[in-house]
């Protein structure tokens, strides 16, 4: 018995020794690979927002395949999972920085981006937001930029849509109270809707729910009793789909409208027939009408990999954020974080596949066009574009 133990111990030790050698070899390997530029990506790949993160990673990876080099060096993507969790987001970004990335891309979900913002600011490394639309992502943070429009704009778009297109005089808001994105967007919608109707009481109900809730019957019954013309319910796609579904089951006939997060396959999977006719604002990208040659090329490449999938706007934003990063590194002429930051901040006339834009003083893309999409026969159908100055 003792002998066997001794042999086992010897084996474990020698294996440990070998493993030590192995890892050492690996480190020298990467150190020698100075010709690689690492770009970090943090996205929700598991948890409640996973479907959104996956769509963006699709776009980022495809962009990397199409444009694998910058400054004559190969670009390596390091993708980490923020687990749809705010605390995990900060950790995920720290891990990226430890691995020596020169810039960061992400994330789907403003809350995760805001949570990572402090780490990014302290580490003085640039980050490019994909579809995080909340004001707080870039505000007061010189290192965070984004390629999408922002919520004050999106809130106005939907308020205008409700007021002019739907002719709504009253609205109810159902918001995901633990989600910065949802609460922010809802408040901009509210301000604009009240301004348009000129009636301070035009928002008849504001109902709250929490991320991960399943039962919305209580709040929906309250909303139904107020009989609003339209219901604005921005939030995570699965919860939103359940809100719409349970609302329909309760006999609510007012249209449900929402924001960009609804554009994921899961929204339709969960909502089924009940989300038919749901309308939401999203980023400008229509695969039937590419904005420029780059967009056409992207659509072509995408269809090679995923022949049957409709391209989500956030996938296109994933592509744009990668190209935006590469463009800044190119113009900076080095991987020095300060130089990249300067290059990003001074971006003007950047031609992305989701539109041409400048970077504002806050670090946002100055986009003034949004797309309106509708769920029709189990698919997202492009409805119209709305421009607001």
């Amino acid at each position, binding site marked *: 018995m003792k002998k066997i133990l001794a042999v086992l111990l010897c084996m474990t030790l020698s294996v440990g020794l070998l493993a030590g050698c192995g890892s050492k070899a690996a480190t020298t390997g990467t150190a020698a690979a100075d010709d690689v530029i690492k770009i970090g990506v943090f996205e929700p*790949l*598991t*948890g*409640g927002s*996973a*479907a959104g993160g*996956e769509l963006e990673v699709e776009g980022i990876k495809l962009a990397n395949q199409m444009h694998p080099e910058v400054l004559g060096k190969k670009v390596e993507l390091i993708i980490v999972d923020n*687990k*749809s969790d705010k605390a995990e987001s900060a950790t995920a970004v720290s891990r990226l920085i430890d691995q020596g990335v020169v810039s960061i891309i992400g994330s789907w979900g403003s809350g995760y981006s805001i949570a990572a913002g402090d780490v990014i600011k302290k580490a003085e490394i640039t980050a490019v937001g994909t579809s995080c639309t909340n004001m707080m992502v870039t505000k007061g943070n010189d290192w965070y930029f984004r390629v999408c429009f922002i919520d004050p704009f999106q809130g106005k778009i939907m308020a205008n849509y409700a007021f002019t297109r739907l002719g709504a005089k009253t609205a109810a808001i159902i918001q995901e*109270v*633990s989600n910065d994105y949802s609460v922010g967007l809802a408040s901009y919608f509210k301000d604009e809707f009240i301004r348009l109707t000129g009636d301070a009481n035009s928002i008849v*109900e504001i*109902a*709250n*729910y*929490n991320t*991960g809730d*399943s*039962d919305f*019957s*209580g*709040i929906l*019954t*309250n909303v*139904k*009793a107020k009989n609003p013309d339209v219901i604005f319910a921005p939030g995570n796609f*699965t919860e939103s*789909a*359940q809100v719409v*579904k349970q609302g329909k*089951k*309760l*006999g609510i006939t007012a249209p449900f409208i929402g924001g960009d997060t609804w554009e994921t396959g*899961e929204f339709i*999977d*969960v909502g*089924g027939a009940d989300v038919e006719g749901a309308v939401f604002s999203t980023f400008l990208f229509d695969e039937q009408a590419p904005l420029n040659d780059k967009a056409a090329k992207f659509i072509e490449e995408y269809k090679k990999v995923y022949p049957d999938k409709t391209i989500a706007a956030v996938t296109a934003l994933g592509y744009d954020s990668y190209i935006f990063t590469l463009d800044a590194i190119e113009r900076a002429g080095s991987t020095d974080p300060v130089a990249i930051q300067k290059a990003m901040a001074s971006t003007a006339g950047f031609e992305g596949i989701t539109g041409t834009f400048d970077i504002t003083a806050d670090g946002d893309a100055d986009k003034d066009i949004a797309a309106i999409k509708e769920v029709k026969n189990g698919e997202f159908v492009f409805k119209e574009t709305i421009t607001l100055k």
Partner: protein
Amino acid sequence: MDFPTFFQHLSNGISLGSLYALIAVGYTMVYGILRLINFAHGDIFMMAMYFAFFSITLFHLPWYIAIVVVILITSVLGMLIEAAAYRPLRDAPKTSVLISAIGVSFLLENLATYIFSGKPKSFPEFTYMTSTVQFGPVSVQRVSLLTPVVTLAALAILLYIINRTKLGMAMRAVSKDYETARVMGIKINRVIAATFAIGSGLAAIGAIMWGVKYIRIEPMMGVMPGLKCFIAAVIGGIGNPVGAVLGGFILGMGEVLLVAFISQLTGWRDAFAFVALILVLLIRPTGIMGEKTTEKV
């Protein structure tokens, strides 16, 4: 508030409450027998929902067979967990078993994330069950009408087992004092395994109803219902099945009525459940139907 709205809230509350009740019974049974809060119970509920999802979408079982299969598999899972994580600790301090239960809970959550992926899945829709019936202006889904009936039927069967069968007598004996029960020739491992099987089976029924009604399934979804149902069991008096059902109804109803009457507090409904737990523990630790027991040495 007008009458239709009130009745709508009432029916929402009953339907949510009866789901809580089904899961709470599992907590209370295990506690009654082992004095163990089985924190993995919520995750057994989650696993049952995945079993149902896969038996219908992947193996294309007709729903009436799927229900039986899911209940059986979940019961086996419950027994396996008991045999692997709790039985070896039978004579260890209570805290060790409790920690083991928390371990099992994390294991199941991460296993589910790993195997089924972290992306939410949507439960196949039973259009008959999810379609609504109109009572005047009040609309109720068929599944919501069915749930309280199933819950009460399950409770009746359970009470029959506990009070009228040999297994039930053995359960009661083990719950009073398992050392003595063992001396008297009761095979306590078998009785405890049966308890886990029944509790998990009820969680499976609850899971199927939940899936039909709320559609979404994800690995972490057992956590909140699990905690809520634990609270329901405590409110009713942990260890007492009738109390657990009562507690489930009270909690479900309370949550919905909170939303109905103080709509500004809707974001706080989870907090409400935990405040209720603290209040019950402070004011009446034995719950509504719990008996006062002297601590055994």
